[in-house]
């Protein structure tokens, strides 16, 4: 096949050459970390990387480590060299800061372009990005990549579905980059309003995270377009960790990242990142790696992402942790009460254990604390929640 490789030299690199490159970059990374990042200095003092296999002897970096050096402690360069700051969700919903130098952004553009190319994007395409830019730093990655391919990006990201449909009709984008939830909403509303998806000009819908084959087929029919997914991680790159090829496999960009699976958990080493290099970062995501030859011609190892291993929930494409809910509850009458969460794709159910003081001094019924908690969760986290009160277990 070998048709849509944006960066053929690296994407289809033969295994021995790739391993040579990885060894070189790993050695240089360890030397840089040892010199430039205090957190790694002692850990790496006596370390020698003799071969790629010796990566197994290098220390891990956990999300908690990154959090402990919040905000800039993991940076390998002074802040004046960092030209972009993104934040991503860390342990228990605390933010982590990811910095990029000029070279990092240029590389991000190339990696995003690899994914876009695999989705068939060329300079002739018009791209609509409906990710909700404020919550999705991924949007800026796609913009960088699209600019490199010279595709036209619509620099508008309306939240309301009506405006999104209007854009699909007016601008006639051929590529839609969006979240699975939003894509499903779009499909449903098109059907409700009896808008023929064929009247739109969509060719490919690129989803921000992997979905099941069933949903893929459903979306392909509802939007009359082929559906591709991307998989990324905020702390590493999203998009840009791997590329979903035409055959539906996620190939890790192994010229940039060293992927391992330790005790079932995906562990990533950034081989060439300047501002914030991470050595053996424990991603808290279950995964499997597979070295099968892929018919797309890419040589990068195939990643099969699984579930998250920390208690991170996803409701309406917004990720959050239980700790964040506890924090919000702390601002309400329900402060200090035990609660249980149940998250589905669209709604969050919060069951709070009742106590006498919860309703003390409230003239009205249970309605008032319920409303207070619900609106507080919506305002602070942007999540619609159903709050109920339950009897504490005896």
């Amino acid at each position, binding site marked *: 096949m070998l048709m849509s490789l944006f960066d053929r030299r690296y994407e289809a690199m033969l295994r021995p050459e790739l391993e040579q490159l990885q060894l070189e970059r790993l050695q240089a990374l360890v*030397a*840089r970390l040892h010199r430039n990042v205090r957190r790694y200095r002692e850990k790496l003092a006596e370390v020698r990387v003799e*071969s790629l296999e010796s990566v197994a002897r290098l220390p891990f970096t956990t999300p908690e480590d990154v959090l402990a050096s919040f905000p*800039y402690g993991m940076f390998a*360069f*002074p802040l004046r060299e960092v030209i972009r700051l993104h934040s991503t969700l860390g342990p228990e919903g605390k933010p982590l800061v990811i910095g990029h*130098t000029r070279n990092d952004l*240029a590389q991000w553009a190339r990696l995003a372009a690899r994914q876009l190319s695999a989705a068939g994007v060329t300079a002739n395409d018009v791209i609509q990005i409906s990710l909700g830019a404020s919550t999705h730093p991924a949007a800026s990655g796609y913009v960088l990549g699209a600019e490199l391919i010279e595709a036209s990006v619509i620099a508008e990201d309306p939240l309301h579905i009506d405006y999104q449909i209007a854009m699909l009709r007016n601008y006639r984008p051929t590529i839609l980059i969006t979240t699975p939830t939003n894509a499903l909403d779009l499909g449903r509303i098109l059907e409700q309003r009896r808008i023929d998806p064929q009247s739109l000009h969509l060719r490919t819908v690129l989803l921000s995270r992997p979905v099941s084959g069933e949903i893929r087929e459903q979306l392909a029919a509802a939007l009359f377009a082929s559906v591709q997914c991307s998989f990324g991680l905020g702390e590493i790159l999203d998009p840009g960790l791997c590329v979903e090829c035409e055959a539906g496999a996620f190939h890790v960009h192994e010229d940039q990242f060293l992927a391992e699976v330790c005790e079932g958990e995906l562990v990533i080493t950034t081989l060439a990142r300047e501002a914030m290099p991470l050595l053996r970062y424990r991603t808290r995501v279950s995964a499997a790696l597979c070295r099968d030859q892929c018919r797309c011609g890419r040589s990068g190892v195939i990643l099969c992402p699984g579930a998250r291993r920390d208690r991170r929930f996803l409701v309406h494409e917004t990720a959050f942790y239980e700790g964040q809910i506890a924090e919000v509850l702390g601002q309400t009458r329900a402060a200090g009460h035990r609660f249980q969460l149940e998250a589905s794709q669209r709604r969050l159910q919060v069951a709070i254990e009742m106590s006498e003081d919860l309703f003390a001094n409230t003239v009205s019924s249970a309605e008032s604390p319920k409303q207070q908690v619900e609106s507080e969760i919506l305002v602070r986290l942007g999540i619609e929640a159903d709050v109920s009160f339950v009897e504490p277990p005896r």
Partner: protein
Amino acid sequence: MLLQVKNLRCGYGNLEVVHGVSLHVCAGEIVGLLGANGAGKSSLLRAIAGLLPPWHGEVLVEGRPTQGQPPWRGVSNSLSLVPEGKMIFADMSVRENLLIGGYHNRDRDLQMEVVLERFPRLRERLHQLGGTLSGGEQQMLALGRALMARPRLLLLDEPSMGLAPRMVELVFTEILKMKDLGLTVLIVEQNALAALSIADRAYVMETGEILLEGEPAELRHNPEVKRAYLGKGGVETPDAYESV
């Protein structure tokens, strides 16, 4: 990959100066090896050429290890070193210098024509003693002498050393032209700007380790390279920003 170096360690006496270096050069590439004085660049180059025995690690030319072979074997392995400070034979004529370069080459008279075609200046000075040439001409002679062996991989050690800026430009233009001849070049340089102007990729070496690898455009924008080799920006440590 024409040249592959894997985790190479070497040094002198008890002193290790290259601490586990890996690099590669693909056929047809010009690759720069940048770094300050004493970074271990020349030692690494000597080890690749077989002049310095590696303590550990491997050097592979076209996938074949060169370990345990005498340095002269390297020449017939299509690898030529142009040493630092040119090292031409001052008391020999330009012609004799060139002939020595092609000592193992049966068609050396033919090759001499090719070399003189490349460097017309050398033809003009063919019977002059090497020591009477100007610095730039001597560098051309050293290059020409290396070409006499018809190498596939040319190892250049500090070709800009001791040359006037204008001469550096000329020599580097010649090196760039060698790429068109199908030659592959690994060039060691302190003059980072000059090397980055002709290289396809480059490595940055400091105290016996490689710190960075990348294309010239990336390296030019790398804050560390800017500070240490291109003389831009002040010295700052990231620790100043650490929040702990």
